[in-house]
């Protein structure tokens, strides 16, 4: 132990002899790096603040390229998010056996969709991505999702496809069995966010479940994003 400490000291002494430190230069460099770091953080923060100030939803600063998920639509056709390039997309994860959160989310989104001016509405697509692919087959989604609005799209896929899509958006879910009950009887716990993807394919905003009932504010966010903001 003491031997190794002595070793480090002699090593340091060697370094100091070989490379004498110019303290003035060292401190100047240190202050310079600190100033650069501080201004970088300040710029990041002020840009976040200025972007966030424009929106009701939680802004992603900088906006992230939206993960292009590969899923299956309610008609059983392969579906990719990038097919909707040029449209603003709002989507959430859920499941059709959900009695509380999911119908509320879809009803809130339907209200937002209908409140949009005609021109904006034609540039918006709402989608519902199932995290319960075992029960939510395309034919089930076809009877469920358009109920809230005929234009809405329901998506499902393989376990892996859904896991990849959820992971990319930070969504989480898990199957909950009731102890002692049939393995086919279960609920899904899941995160309840709605994601806003801009027409140019960037993930711009995030809405927590309880933000969705303020229709006017979400309409304002959508119009802002459609205007290129």
């Amino acid at each position: 132990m003491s031997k190794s400490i002595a070793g480090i000291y002699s090593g340091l002494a060697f370094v100091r002899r070989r490379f004498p430190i110019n303290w003035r230069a060292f401190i100047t460099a240190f202050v310079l790096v600190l100033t650069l770091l501080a201004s970088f953080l300040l710029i990041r923060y002020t840009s976040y603040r200025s972007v966030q100030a424009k929106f009701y939803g939680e802004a992603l600063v900088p906006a992230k390229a939206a993960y292009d998920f590969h899923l299956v639509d309610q008609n059983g056709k392969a579906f990719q998010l990038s097919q909707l390039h040029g449209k603003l997309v709002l989507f959430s994860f859920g499941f059709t056996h959900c009695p509380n959160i999911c119908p509320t989310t879809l009803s809130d989104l339907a209200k937002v969709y209908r409140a949009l001016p005609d021109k904006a509405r034609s540039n918006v697509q709402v989608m519902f991505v199932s995290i319960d692919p075992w029960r939510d087959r395309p034919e089930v989604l076809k009877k469920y999702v358009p109920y809230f609005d005929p234009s809405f799209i329901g998506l499902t896929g393989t376990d892996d496809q859904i896991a990849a899509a959820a992971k990319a958006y930070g969504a989480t879910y898990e199957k909950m069995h009731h102890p002692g009950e049939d393995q086919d009887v279960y609920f899904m716990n899941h995160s309840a966010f709605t994601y806003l993807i801009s027409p140019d394919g960037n993930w711009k905003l995030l809405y927590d479940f309880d933000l969705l009932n303020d229709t006017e504010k979400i309409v304002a966010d959508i119009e802002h994003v459609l205007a290129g903001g």
Partner: protein
Amino acid sequence: MIKTLIALLMLAPILFADGLPVKIEKPWLQAVPSVASDTAAFMKIQNLSQASIKLVGGVTDIATHVEPMITTTQNNEGGKMLGMESVPALEIPPGGTLVLKPGGKHLMVMGLKSHPKEGDRVKIVLLFSPGNQKVDVELAVLKQEPK
């Protein structure tokens, strides 16, 4: 005559129990598509009595079970995850109000036998303890939480 009066007076507390002193506001049922097996009922229940009461469930013609549920929030890998948990009862203290709302406590209406449409009205008999006290509620079937 006096005997009948006394008998009636003795019955009075029982009659009172039949009409549990609760005030129910904005009862509504989430309208769901015909493929859905379950939905949820929401309302505000104010306990006007001097004693604590518990909502233990309900009975309705449109479904096999009506159960009190709570919404749970857990943190999973830094993300907020919502889930549901069946509870035996939801307690309302004297003078207190139980708020059943989307994303919160609710009555889960399970095993739907029919799917009422938006604008319909459905009846649920709420069950309270102690005792087996019943309160009839007529709910508006809505797609959206009323303001």
